[in-house]
């Protein structure tokens, strides 16, 4: 099992640890609910160093990314980030990812540079997939092992981090980034992104500087009561927003059109992997759709529970479910036929011997108050 540069810190904090994607990761510290509320109402810090980072650099870097990703990379200015996915050639998803268009200070004339941030469990698969598709003039670097990443999230994230940097954080727009000095450490990539819906930043740093950055962030946030947050609350936070988790809600066999990711599937940008398949799905409709639902019962829906219609026929499957700490009700996502996908549609989730009534709702489950 791999560790992150912060594993010792997590152990010292008394975190409950477990293996995730081959890494020894913190699941929770004070308890999932407390950590969840810390992010929704204050500020919390996640170690997400297990995530993978690739650099793609070259004269045809954009052409490669236009071919392998579903979103339109040509729309990115330097300093922009974009949510996207890597379609396979059968209409499924190899991975979902963030694409950053980097500064060109390391580039020769005519070159562009991008950073791809991918799921830890898919680093090798994604690398091989993009390599296979790289019939262009580009260089690729896997910098995952030397890149650390923490996410500082919540309504007080800006206030806490501003104490550590001269970069004007409040001015940074969502899904943009900049490089700057944080806590005396040079060259930190400060990204106004996250997986919680509560705002904040993700900080990419050289692995050997991550522990110093972590300590500085906790010192700066002492006054605010900043809290460490584990992967348990990361899951409840993302699910309340209706964000997909690779391996649960999307995988090699689900299409972005089925998963409600049409907004990152830009069919007009020109051909890309599976674009014809997606165009056809758009035109003719899909056989299943990912929906968000709530339950009448107190029982919690879980990944792989079967979904039935009123005639007790299996029509779908739950992909994610949890007890929502913000709403204090069970919430879930799953695939159902279009006939059962409209807001207000009802179906039944099979939990052991019980069949629990569920109602389709509009995501996100939780609406974050705008500052």
């Amino acid at each position, binding site marked *: 099992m791999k560790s992150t540069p912060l594993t010792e810190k997590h152990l010292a904090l008394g975190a409950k640890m477990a293996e995730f994607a081959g890494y020894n990761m913190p699941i*929770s510290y004070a308890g999932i609910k407390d950590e969840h509320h810390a992010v929704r109402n204050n500020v919390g810090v996640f170690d997400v160093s297990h995530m993978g980072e690739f650099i793609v650099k070259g004269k045809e870097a954009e052409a490669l990314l236009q071919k392998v990703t579903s979103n339109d990379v040509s729309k990115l200015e330097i300093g922009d980030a974009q949510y996207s996915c890597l379609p396979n050639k059968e209409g499924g998803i190899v991975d979902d990812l963030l694409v950053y268009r980097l500064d060109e200070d390391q580039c020769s004339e005519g070159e562009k540079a991008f950073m791809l941030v991918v799921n830890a469990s898919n680093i090798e698969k994604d690398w091989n997939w993009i390599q296979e598709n790289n019939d262009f003039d580009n260089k690729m670097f896997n910098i995952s092992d030397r890149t650390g990443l923490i996410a500082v999230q919540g309504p007080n994230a800006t206030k806490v981090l501003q104490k550590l940097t001269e970069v004007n954080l409040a001015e940074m727009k969502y899904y943009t980034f900049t490089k700057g000095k944080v806590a005396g450490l040079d060259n930190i990539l400060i990204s106004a992104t996250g997986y919680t819906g509560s705002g904040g930043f993700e900080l990419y740093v050289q692995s050997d500087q991550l522990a110093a950055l972590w300590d500085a962030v906790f010192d700066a946030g002492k006054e605010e009561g900043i809290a460490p947050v584990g992967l348990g609350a990361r899951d409840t936070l993302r699910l309340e927003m209706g964000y997909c988790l690779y391996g649960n809600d999307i995988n090699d066999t689900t299409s972005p059109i089925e998963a409600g990711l049409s907004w990152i599937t830009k069919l007009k940008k020109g051909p890309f992997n599976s674009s014809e398949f997606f165009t056809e799905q758009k035109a003719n409709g899909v056989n299943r759709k990912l929906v968000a639902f709530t339950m009448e019962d107190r029982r919690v829906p879980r990944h792989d529970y079967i979904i039935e219609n009123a005639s007790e026929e299996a029509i779908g499957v739950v992909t994610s479910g949890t007890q929502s700490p913000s709403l204090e009700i069970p919430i879930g996502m799953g695939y159902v036929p279009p006939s059962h996908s409209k807001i207000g549609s009802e179906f039944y989730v099979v939990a052991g011997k019980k069949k629990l009534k569920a109602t389709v709702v509009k995501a996100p489950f939780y609406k974050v108050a705008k500052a």
Partner: protein
Amino acid sequence: MNLPEDLKYTEEHEWIKIDSENVAVLGITDFAQSELGELVYVEVETVGETLEKGAVFGTVEAVKTTSDLFMPVSGEVLEFNPELNENEGDNPTAINDDPYGKGWIVKIKVSDVAELDDLMSADAYKSIVS
């Protein structure tokens, strides 16, 4: 880890204790509640039913996971702890706070008290969770 000596334990991380003659009280262990994390709901709909050893008599829901509850011995489910019952106390975290005390889950009428002899002592249980 808190493992009272006067209880019997199961591989399903439950404890049971004879209360009086053939009536026993049972719940989940300190280890189990710590692994599950904060409980959000306890469901027992088997009061009045006589169940075989190993049968599911209820379910606990934590934020992250769901776990069934199994009969440690055969018997009739007599009472569901009102502190946990959603229609009464509705306080499932009593199990997190006090798994051997106010977080007990059900009382049962044990069919054959000798079945308790097959369960583990505190020492034996300790060896499987540490």
